[in-house]
């Protein structure tokens, strides 16, 4: 019989080992699933984890890795601050959409003028859009004590409706012959977020993501505000004793995560996506939740987790086109990763004791 026993001190070893163990367990369980689907599990796992990095098309796919990881990391770092404080912003997807809509609207309003200030103004507008969307659950929580999980999640669907309105209505390309979708930013240089070095996948969003990782790392390690965030999450009463105002913290954490999600949306719409479309959002805001936990809510961990998750996206896409796996199988595979991570996570604070059978 197994029994869990609380460790006096959290285990440093397992803190770093759990993500690795979780990835290995995911490979095993995922392999079994792929085998049941009638595919060669080794081929599938090789396609997902190996080919994008070292396979035939790696020169192109490695750049895609940064393109996918950028928004994931940017959103996940913001979310992780709130998660650490016990503030659950589940609606980053909506904030991502609103950042893109606000930013794109500012850029498109300036079309076709060419000014070096257009892109910076769009960045500010994108961050503002995400921030504004996150303020709705934040203020409802502090004023009326609503649950931020529900409110932020439901606002995702409102944002999607606004996105559809933008794509078919107020941001539609007047020269698009009635097709839904905005002008493409790739033909509007002053507002475009192109690759900084051709073929690397590096764009301003990736640069911002890296800067955010560093900023969040310093905040959590060295700044009193980071200490307060951790304290509020671990021991809310001790945080009030310390002098943290819970409401201020909610507004701050929701605001930061909303603004970062908004930025991610802005960089996406001006760069890789190129335009506002009805199906502009592809789930980065939700996947970022997994990335945040996979990265142990630690900025550096999130960077690695974002790259790993991007890898499963790209590899998964290859597996479904080349090996004919259903897309749902890839999603289940990604879900397994979070499942095993949270399961193995217990070992950080608990140890497993093997008991004699029959002992109660």
């Amino acid at each position, binding site marked *: 019989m197994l029994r869990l*026993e609380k460790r*006096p*001190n*959290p285990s440093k070893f397992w803190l770093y080992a759990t993500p690795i163990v979780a990835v290995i367990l995911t490979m095993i369980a995922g392999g079994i699933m792929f085998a049941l689907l009638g595919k060669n599990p080794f081929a599938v796992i090789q396609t997902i984890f190996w080919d994008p990095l070292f396979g035939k098309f790696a020169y192109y796919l490695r750049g895609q890795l940064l393109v996918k990881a950028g928004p994931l990391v940017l959103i996940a770092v913001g979310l992780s601050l709130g998660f650490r404080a016990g503030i659950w912003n589940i609606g980053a997807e909506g904030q991502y959409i609103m950042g893109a809509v606000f930013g794109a609207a500012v850029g498109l309003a300036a079309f076709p003028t060419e000014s070096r200030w257009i892109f910076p103004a769009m960045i500010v507008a994108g961050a503002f859009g995400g921030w504004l969307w996150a303020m709705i659950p934040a203020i409802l929580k502090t004023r009326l004590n609503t649950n931020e999980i529900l409110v932020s999640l439901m606002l995702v669907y409102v944002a999607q409706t606004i996105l559809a309105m933008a794509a078919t209505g107020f941001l539609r390309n007047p020269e698009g012959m009635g097709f839904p979708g905005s002008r493409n930013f790739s033909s509007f240089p002053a507002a475009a977020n192109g690759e900084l070095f051709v073929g690397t996948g590096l764009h301003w969003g990736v640069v911002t993501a890296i800067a955010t990782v560093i900023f969040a790392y310093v905040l959590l390690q*060295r*700044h*009193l*505000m980071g*200490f307060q965030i*951790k*304290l509020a999450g*671990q*021991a809310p*009463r*001790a945080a*009030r*004793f*310390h*002098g943290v*105002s819970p409401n201020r913290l909610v507004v701050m954490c929701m605001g930061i995560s909303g603004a970062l999600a908004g930025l991610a949306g802005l960089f996406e719409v001006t760069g890789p996506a190129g335009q506002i479309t009805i199906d502009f959002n592809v789930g980065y805001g939700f996947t970022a939740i997994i990335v945040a936990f996979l990265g142990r809510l630690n900025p550096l961990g999130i960077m690695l987790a974002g790259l790993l998750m991007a890898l499963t996206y790209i590899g998964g896409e290859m597996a479904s086109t080349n090996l004919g796996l259903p897309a749902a199988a890839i999603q289940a595979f990604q879900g397994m990763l979070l499942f095993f991570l949270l399961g193995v996570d217990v070992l950080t604070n608990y140890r497993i004791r093997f008991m004699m059978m029959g*002992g*109660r």
Partner: protein
Amino acid sequence: MTDAKLLTIEGISKSYPGVKANENVSLSIGRGEVHALLGENGAGKSTLVKMIYGLVRPDEGRMTFLGRTFAPTKPSEARSTGVGMVFQHFSLFEALNVAENVALGMDNPPPQRTLAQRIREVSDGYGLPLDPNRLVGELSAGERQRVEIIRCLLQSPKLLIMDEPTSVLTPQEVEILFTTLRQLAAEGTSILYISHKLEEIRSLCDAATILRRGKVVGSCTPREKSARELAEMMVGATLTPPERAAKDLGDVALEARGLAVPSLNPFGTSLKDISFTVRKGEVLAIGGVAGNGQDELLLALSGEVRSVPGAVRIDGHNSGHLGPNERRAAGLVTGPEERLGHAAAPDMSLTENALLTGALRMGLTNNGFIDWVKTREYSEQIIKTFDVRTPGSHTAARALSGGNLQKFVIGREILQTPGVIIVNQPTWGVDAAAAAFIRQALLDRAAAGAAVVVISQDIDELLEVGDRFAALNEGRLSDPVPVKGLTVDQIGLMLGGAHGMHKAEVHHAQA
């Protein structure tokens, strides 16, 4: 009757990782005997009774109950054999009434009406008046304990285990309880009585077994020993009471003026019109039965709950509207009752916990950036000055024993050289040596010119450290009176709150 043994325990041991909670413990309890289990916190008393009650299984050793082998694997098995237990922390639902709560704790509860009738019979029969239809949320701590006791008595136990039953009672309520327990013993029920309050044990118990670090270090007849002898057996060292230097009182450093704060939860206590002053160098002792507004008072003084500006004045400045950090800046620091989760973050290191309240007064940050080197030095200074036993400042707070963490938490506040220090239950669950150390540290701080407020439920402690005494009762504070010349009886009357006490006395006059 005491010659026939009810329960015999032979050579019981129980280990947890890193600790031997019980090692080769043997004792026996006769029928109708009131047997004391005496020991400091962490001596292994709780583990031992949990084994008797079937919550924990021993690693070694055997127990016999009425001559038969007794190895309960769950509490219901212990109950059906005839063992009842009243826990220190009540497990009652505040939103349910007394009879419903009693039914929840029984294995085969009778219908509500029958049960209510039986509760009345038993409670009157033992001088513990209790209305089965009242909501538990409306009851005082003493009455809640009666619910737990009656729950046990309804199953007519042969052995009743009581874990620190008097920690929530006024002296008068303690007397009522003791009368009941003596009556039970006279009827042949054995009682295993756990406590570290020595006078109680001397007045109540027929025999005592003393535990220290999981081992039996002695057994005696408590009436034949002095409280001091018992304490020294328990601690294994000679104890010195705290010293206090004569001192001159300075200006008023802390004043509460009509402080009123509504309670945050429906069963909490609202503070009503609380007024007092504390001068520099003075110790104000605030007593009260648990749940009469102690927590709320500490929150209102620390700044976690704010009030109107003039309700709290620090050094003559209105401070009621200030938050905890602004009050710290003004020189007021506090030590809440709950160590883990309130005074300290359990999963954070001692260094991080030093930062928790020390950031401001110790200058541990620059423009919001934490100076970890300085913070670590500060936490190591606390550990050294206050003799905190721990592997080092990187240890998580939850890994420390209660006494050591309390020394750290109190030390953290005292080393900030505050002008006003307010503590709630500073020595709750702390071993005797650490408790003496903490009280001395508070007195030293007062001698150095600080105004000190000690909120406690331990009357001996309040008399030991206080210059003046005031009692909290249902959120109101009595007028402070000098401690010199106060008797325990007077204090008991000040604490009040002995609901139904009158009725019980009347009943006994008739019996």
